[in-house]
């Protein structure tokens, strides 16, 4: 039984998992959907009440019935590296590939439909609340007056993109940023704006959850850090990520989150305040993990590889990972 990894060639983080699977002798086929059709080819036959499908890439041929799991890591957009790309060909290729794969009994990390929903930050915030995780007061609005009222109630705010993405035309980076007290909110009318109460943090926390396993890391905020430095991704601090124990209540809540989201993998970002409260910021359903593994030595790649390699009995199509709640 084979593990199928859907990702780009340049994804060196995925390499960590491929190497682990190679070490244990688990067959792997790595495919970038951008190469379909062309470097990647597929075929599926629905005859006499059954389905037989095949996928080939890099000289490897795999039967779709022989897939034990699919890792939806960082796949390219289907048919974008073909000789004559078009939006229509992308849709055709996407429907063929993902449609066939959805019909297999393979376990997904993560299920594409669940992944799509889980990318929505507004949904994440509500789901986190429902799972009992502390969420900083947040407003998403296009009403300038509502933003002004919110700023009166919560005078220390940050702003961040609703989607978590960065604009590309031209390419710009939009870190989570602190808002000055006298800010003019008129431009809120031009696009949905996410405002959130700034948590005076003592540390950033990254919980990488793989199936039922939580690998948590903490990065302390230096005592002399400027309060405007809110986004750990762009902070000047060179403090390393270090392993940290997870409070039982938080562990239960993140398991509940993933179970409800139908995800097998999630990278949770929290900030810790002076009272020791872990505030939920977001859960990236395909979050990076290499940088945490390098600092902490936590076996994240191996844990992912183990999850992907696990053999489970067939239980019908489109199964997601089962998450066991931590007691």
């Amino acid at each position, binding site marked *: 039984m084979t593990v199928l990894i859907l990702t780009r060639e*340049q994804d*060196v*983080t995925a390499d960590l998992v491929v190497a682990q699977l190679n070490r244990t002798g688990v067959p792997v086929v790595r495919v970038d959907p951008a190469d379909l059709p062309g470097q990647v080819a597929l075929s599926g036959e629905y005859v006499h009440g059954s389905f037989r499908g095949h996928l080939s890439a890099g000289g490897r041929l795999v039967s779709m019935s022989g897939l034990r799991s699919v890792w939806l890591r960082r796949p390219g957009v289907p048919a974008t590296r073909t000789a004559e790309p078009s939006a229509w060909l992308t849709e055709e290729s996407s429907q063929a590939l993902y449609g066939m794969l959805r019909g297999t009994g393979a376990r997904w990390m993560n299920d594409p439909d669940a992944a799509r929903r889980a*990318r929505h930050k507004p949904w994440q915030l509500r789901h986190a609340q429902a799972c009992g995780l502390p969420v900083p007061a947040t407003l998403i609005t296009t009403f300038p007056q509502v*933003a002004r009222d919110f700023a009166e109630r919560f005078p220390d705010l940050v702003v961040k993109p609703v989607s978590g993405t*960065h604009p590309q035309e031209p390419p710009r980076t939009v870190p989570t940023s602190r808002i000055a007290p006298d800010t003019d909110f008129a431009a809120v009318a031009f696009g949905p704006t996410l405002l959130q109460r700034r948590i005076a943090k003592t540390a950033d926390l990254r919980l990488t959850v793989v199936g039922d396993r939580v690998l948590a890391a903490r990065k302390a905020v230096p005592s002399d850090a400027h309060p405007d430095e809110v986004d750990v991704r762009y902070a000047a601090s060179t403090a390393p990520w270090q392993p940290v124990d997870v409070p039982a209540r938080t562990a239960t809540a993140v398991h509940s989150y993933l179970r409800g989201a139908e995800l097998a993998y999630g990278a949770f970002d929290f900030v810790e305040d002076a009272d020791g409260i872990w505030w939920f910021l977001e859960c990236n359903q*395909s*979050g990076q993990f*290499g*940088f945490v593994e390098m600092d902490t030595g936590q076996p994240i790649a191996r844990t992912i590889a183990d999850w992907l390699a696990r053999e489970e009995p067939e239980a019908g199509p489109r199964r997601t990972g089962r998450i066991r709640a931590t007691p």
Partner: protein
Amino acid sequence: MRLFVLNYARDTEQLEFSAPYTYDSGLQLNVLADGRIAAHDQGLMRELGATTSTAGSKTHFDD
């Protein structure tokens, strides 16, 4: 008509670089010129930021 959040945007650092590794479709891994697996060279990964939480921001939602 400038979106509010874009008042906080920064110029994107030019991350164009020639990666010192290439994808080997036989191994299904990125390898260095000497054949080692690039991802296992932690010094190089740190230098390039290839596995950090900002890697891939251009093309993916998830950091």
